[in-house]
């Protein structure tokens, strides 16, 4: 299991976490990967394979913690995360590469 952590301390380990994206804020659970939850909120994220091998859904993880239930095949740049297969484990802030 891969864990990405940042220096920001964990908030209360709730099952619901806040995801900050620019001025937007959405609530997500640990039940599903981030990508589907962003889509449900109407936020468009690039995707292709949706199972961790193509890296199309790579987005910036500015701070916070995510976990991968299985190690993705794609290379994950440091400071980035794969939205399609990452489970959000704390409040996080994300950004698209173009921002």
């Amino acid at each position, binding site marked *: 299991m891969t864990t990405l952590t940042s220096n920001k301390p964990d908030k209360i380990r709730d099952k619901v976490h806040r995801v900050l994206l620019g001025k937007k804020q959405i609530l997500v659970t640990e039940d599903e990967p981030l990508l589907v939850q962003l889509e449900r909120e109407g936020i468009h994220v690039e995707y292709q*394979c*949706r199972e961790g*091998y*193509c890296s199309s859904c*790579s987005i910036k993880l500015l701070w916070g913690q995510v976990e991968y239930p299985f190690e993705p*095949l*794609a*290379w994950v*740049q440091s400071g980035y995360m794969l939205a399609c297969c990452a489970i959000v484990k704390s409040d996080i802030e994300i950004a*698209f590469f173009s921002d």
Partner: protein
Amino acid sequence: MSYSTFNRKQFDSMKEPMFFGENVNVARYDQQKHPIFEKLIEKQLSFFWRPEEVDLSSDRKDFQKLEEHEQHIFLSNLKYQTLLDSVQGRSPNVALLPIVSLPELETWIETWSFSETIHSRSYTHIIRNIVNDPTKIFDDITVNKEITKRADSVSVYYDRLIEMVSLYNTLGLGTHHVPEHGDIEISMRSLKKALYLTVASVNVLEAIRFYVSFACSFAFAERTLMEGNAKIIKLIARDEALHLTGTQHMLNLMASGKDDPEMAIIAQECKEEMRNIFVEAAEQEKDWASYLFKDGSMIGLNAQILGQYVEYITNVRMQAVGLDTAFETKHNPIPWINAWLVSDNVQVAPQEAEISSYLVGQIDNDLSESDFDDFDL
């Protein structure tokens, strides 16, 4: 120096770099320096498909109904795809196998290249099904100026690496005079640099050039035209997504210096040149878009939109290998492409899925004592 098909030296392959170490001897996978390459092999094998599985009978009717300029777009795109896979079906083998030093990477290269040959066979399957005389289309690939221009740019780095490696294998390090090519300096540094730039240009081919062609194929399917073709391209796109992950891993492993410290220095030195490879490819793809749409555009796609997509996808791919983005375009101008690219609704044949009645010699191991409760002897 000279290549051996079974290196008789004893060495620890776990300590070898990906390339330019010892030639591989035993094809063993019990110990792996970079296990990612075996994972890619397994994934690629799980994707196995054959073009003949896809029915193209309605594509023939669709094609005949297309307007002339649309036929030009469709056929030119197909010729370009044929060119790209002709190169990819052989070049990783020819260029990389003589210099690879890890068994798992060697096998990944072979697996990768093999899957490209399936793509090449698909184009023949498609062309045979939509036109009466495939010869005209294939023959044009080596004659048509717009296509041959693309052939030069996709093969130049491969060809240079192959030439340098063959000089290295026969004559060793030093400066060698080659008739018509002049003096060529062969040092470990120059070889590794040629390799790094080759992998970068292959990444560009798979991660940018192919995606531009996918956009055209799917633009027809968006209008419910040439849907058999789109189904094949979808399978090809799934493979290509894996291949580009393979080259991204190679590039990032090289740049990190974890595999070969000298490679990290070379990656740093080549940063500008690598950036240029990406930007030049994007410009070439935009020129290609103008050629495709020279006689008219089609609903949903024109030279301008395709050009924006080129810029967008180039930015995405540059970021993935640690380069700063080069273009202003920040949003995907054709977001509908994702629905076509997505692999999770690719149909999987029953014999490949875990349906036991289709699997040969299938044994269900997940049994408990209680399963035999109603069994009397």
